[in-house]
């Protein structure tokens, strides 16, 4: 990871894999450009996210873990119940 000051890390790039149809939204449509790309048996979309790990902040990419099995867990929010 970079040697930037830990406080103000540069924003993470988000989704790195381009969406299947990268065309701009059509007129009259309110669809978000990033659409669901996932299906079992297909590559997981790569991404970069800012993260808290090992007591500090860093940006993490899914492709950093290539060669390992990964469990990616999404959840609604910190300080909630389940």
């Amino acid at each position, binding site marked *: 990871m970079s040697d930037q000051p830990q406080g103000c890390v540069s924003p993470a790039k988000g989704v790195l894999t381009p969406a299947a149809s990268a065309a701009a939204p059509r007129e009259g449509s309110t669809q978000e450009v990033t659409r669901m790309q996932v299906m079992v048996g297909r590559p997981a979309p790569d991404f970069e996210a*800012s993260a808290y790990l090992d007591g500090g902040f860093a940006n993490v990419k899914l492709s950093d873990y*290539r060669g390992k099995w990964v469990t990616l867990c999404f959840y609604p929010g910190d300080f909630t119940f389940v």
Partner: protein
Amino acid sequence: MSADSRFTHKVWQEEELSKMVPGGVPYPMLSDAGGRIGAAYGVYDEAAGVDVRGRFLIDPEGVIQAMEVLTPPVGRNFAELTRQIQAFQHVAATKGAEVTPAGWRPGDPTLKPGPDLVGKVWKVWKPKQE
């Protein structure tokens, strides 16, 4: 990964998670600001502004092997996640020569798919009565 910032993750780890689990959660806690990554994975709830309870199992080549999505009130079952990881790793280790039938646990018989097995699975495997 949630829509919370890395700062909130840090404080949640310090204030609560480390009191539930010794040393806290040993995995990177990712921040999905604006739900952009969740949206690509089909789990971002735009109206609520949060990622719902999605879990993706990704193999060493970066291919999704399994996914499970729940609405927020119900938590995950880690015994099933562990079972799936073991099953997928077994299949991968045999390069697909062996596949795992329903209810498989490590040590149980596997199946060897091929033309000879068509219509003959009943001879080599019976469902468990659980």
